[in-house]
């Protein structure tokens, strides 16, 4: 009897999750189809501007992926080789921070460094050169994409290199391998397997990146599809064109996802990086290697640390009293905090329901369980701005979307966080099912007791990490908020973006520091509080 009851309970829970995930997607899709008749297809297809946008989207994503990955290989190798390097801790910390820094902040830091009046131009001027502006356009976009994706890719590659077993290193030192031999026989074969999927992941992230292209690009020469959708809605009020671009974006993202899935299993992005025993490699002594590693590590540290430092320095200025006493800031602050926490909780709710269903179906209905896994990926085909556009179109005949904009922002951010949630949680969730289901039912640990004594101790760490990630990402999100933004309802990234655009640099600096502080605090507090101490 209890068995039936508990079955029903999870079933209802999972059904709600399914609805929460599927309804917005269906609503967006039906909104798109209702516009299909109105679209002036011929005009769109022959529009050279659109094709230039499409071309630029692919081109910048290709370049970003290529640069991020090749640099990441160098950095990961240097880090793997220098396990006792003093700055290793700092570099890895910076890399972790880069995962949760909002894109507006990174862009701000990059402008502070590379902008026309930035540090580099001032240095150049001091050396006798002429200042020139290079940050707006492709260069700036690439800088920002490398800032985010180099740390991500390096972490994944480093994890691969750290997984090489001690025997292999011992063997290589006994065989007297040179640095080149090690690369050829050991490191490259280990990295080769993960590179295609990693490339697909980085490519997808750069292809759909919005805030970066919006702030650093945006002109006719440097606009991506994602930004073009936004412009079609907000500037041209051409909904049919936005629908056309959205469908185009869905097709392209589908292609990228398909390519990624064909290339192998999805990779684990957020595993911890703890090196166990020191590996003994035979190539630690040669001077050339020491110098080149030092150079690579220094450049990588500067790449990530300098923009963040510039933001911190810019935030310490005389405008702080005005900005901090301004009610608009605290209004935006509380909105951002609310969006972050609600998105993360909603996302957790969705992910738990899906995973619960997957756990129950795994044995009897393999296809259904697979479908759940697929749902996480489907989200990746519909980038945030496309989904927001769909909801915008679908809801606006019925409600005033600007009045409920924060709810929509929460919903979209929760859905966008879902793939990350599923990735972080699924291993632990399924492991509990596999290892303890029979044990629990045989000794009668069920319901609340099972939750408290079995599920929570095992899940709290991944739940803490997943909530922290999604909350920090939502707090820093600009894309969806910008689409629904109205003067009345502000969030911190939006405020920051406006101040960046209106050249209030002092106010922007303080706002940036508050936003950065919020994101880092959310991340650290949620991860530590829920995840417990690391042991």
């Amino acid at each position, binding site marked *: 009897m209890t068995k039936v009851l508990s079955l029903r309970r999870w079933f209802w829970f999972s059904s709600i999750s399914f609805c929460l995930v599927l309804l917005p997607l269906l609503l967006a899709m039906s909104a798109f189809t209702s516009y299909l008749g109105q679209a002036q297809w011929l005009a769109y297809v022959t529009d050279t501007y659109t094709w230039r946008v499409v071309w630029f989207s692919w081109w910048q994503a290709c370049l970003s992926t290529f640069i991020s990955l090749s640099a990441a290989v160098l950095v990961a190798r240097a880090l793997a080789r220098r396990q006792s390097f003093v700055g290793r801790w700092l570099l890895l910390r910076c890399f972790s921070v880069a995962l949760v820094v909002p894109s507006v902040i990174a862009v701000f830091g990059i402008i502070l460094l590379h902008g026309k009046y930035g540090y580099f131009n001032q240095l150049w001027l001091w050396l006798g050169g002429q200042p020139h502006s290079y940050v707006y356009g492709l260069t700036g976009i690439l800088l920002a994409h490398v800032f985010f994706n180099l740390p991500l890719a390096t972490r994944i590659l480093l994890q691969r290199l750290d997984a090489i*077993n001690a*025997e*292999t290193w*011992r*063997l*290589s*030192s*006994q*065989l*007297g*391998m*040179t640095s080149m*031999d090690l690369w050829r*026989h*050991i490191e490259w*074969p280990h990295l080769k397997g993960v590179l295609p999927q990693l490339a697909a992941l980085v490519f997808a992230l750069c292809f759909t990146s919005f805030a970066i292209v919006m702030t650093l690009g945006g002109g006719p020469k440097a606009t991506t599809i994602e930004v073009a959708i936004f412009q079609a809605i907000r500037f041209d009020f051409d909904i049919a064109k936005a629908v056309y671009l959205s469908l185009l974006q869905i097709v392209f993202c589908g292609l990228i996802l398909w390519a990624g899935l064909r290339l192998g299993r999805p990779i684990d992005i957020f595993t911890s990086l703890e090196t166990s025993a020191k590996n*003994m490699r*035979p190539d630690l002594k040669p001077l050339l290697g020491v110098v080149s590693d030092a150079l690579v590590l220094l450049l990588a540290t500067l790449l990530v640390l300098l923009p963040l430092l510039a933001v911190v320095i810019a935030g310490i200025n005389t405008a702080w009293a005005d900005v901090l006493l301004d009610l608009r800031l605290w209004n935006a602050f509380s909105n951002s905090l609310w969006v972050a926490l609600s998105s993360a909780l909603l996302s957790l709710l969705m992910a738990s329901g899906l995973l619960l269903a997957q756990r129950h179906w795994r044995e009897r209905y393999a296809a259904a369980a697979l479908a759940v896994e697929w749902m996480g990926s489907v989200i990746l085909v519909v980038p945030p701005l496309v989904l927001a556009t769909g909801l915008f179109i679908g809801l606006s005949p019925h409600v005033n979307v600007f009045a409920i904009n924060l709810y929509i922002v929460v919903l979209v951010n929760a859905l966008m966080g879902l793939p990350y949630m599923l990735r972080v949680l699924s291993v632990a969730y399924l492991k509990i099912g596999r290892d303890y289901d029979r044990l629990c039912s045989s000794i009668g640990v069920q319901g609340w007791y099972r939750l408290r004594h079995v599920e929570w101790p095992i899940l709290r760490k991944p739940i803490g990490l997943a909530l922290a990630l999604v909350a920090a990402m939502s707090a820093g999100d600009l894309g969806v908020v910008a689409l629904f933004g109205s003067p009345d309802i502000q969030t911190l990234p939006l405020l920051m973006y406006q101040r960046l655009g209106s050249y209030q640099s002092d106010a922007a600096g303080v706002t940036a520091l508050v936003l950065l502080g919020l994101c880092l605090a959310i991340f650290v507090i949620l991860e530590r509080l829920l995840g417990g101490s690391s042991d």
Partner: protein
Amino acid sequence: MINFKQVSCRLGEQQFCYDLQIPLGQVVAIMGASGSGKSTLLNLLAGFIQPQTDAAQILLGDQRVDQLDPAQRPVTSLFQEHNLFAHMSVFNNLALGIRPSLRLTADEIDQVEIALDQVGLKGLGSRLPKQLSGGQRQRVALGRALVRRKPLLLLDEPFSALDPALRQEMAALVKGLSQQHQLTVLLVTHEPKDALELAETVVFIADGRVHWQGPSKDFLQQKDSHIKAYLGQSC
């Protein structure tokens, strides 16, 4: 003679110190409980771990080897697993033992083929490790030890992942090859049977030190409490 003089090191909480002489040209079994320091002895000899005191010396005959890089030491190691590069053919796995660049002369290619024949893998040179059985994989590693032509072979529980029949077969192969090539073999093992069948000498290690050393036929008759506890005999 292999000579360990006050060779000490510390790994985590545990302290190891070895003073020991081993005659050359023999098969020597290194025995002892898990964690007692059997593998550490081999790792020190191979150069994977450095001794921590200045007084430490490891001599091979008259030559000091403790200052040399692992690649310069006259030893070849064989681990319990991970001896092969998974993406590389059997032939190349052997060829690495001659030249890590894999650019071999015609003469060296012949050496690899001969070694493959000696370990009973003739004709399997183009296979990948995953297409071989566990026993065959260990044979490949043994083949590489042969082409390296180092006088010392260090075996760290090389048979413990194998079935009893395979184990015996491998033991016989090691015995035969060591006699044929006049190798000194140091064999870390858990099995008293291995020690009796293969080794002339047993070195028994307890708490990071050499506790007993003697002919293998005497080992099982020892009245020593550590050895009896290890063998599971009541005192």
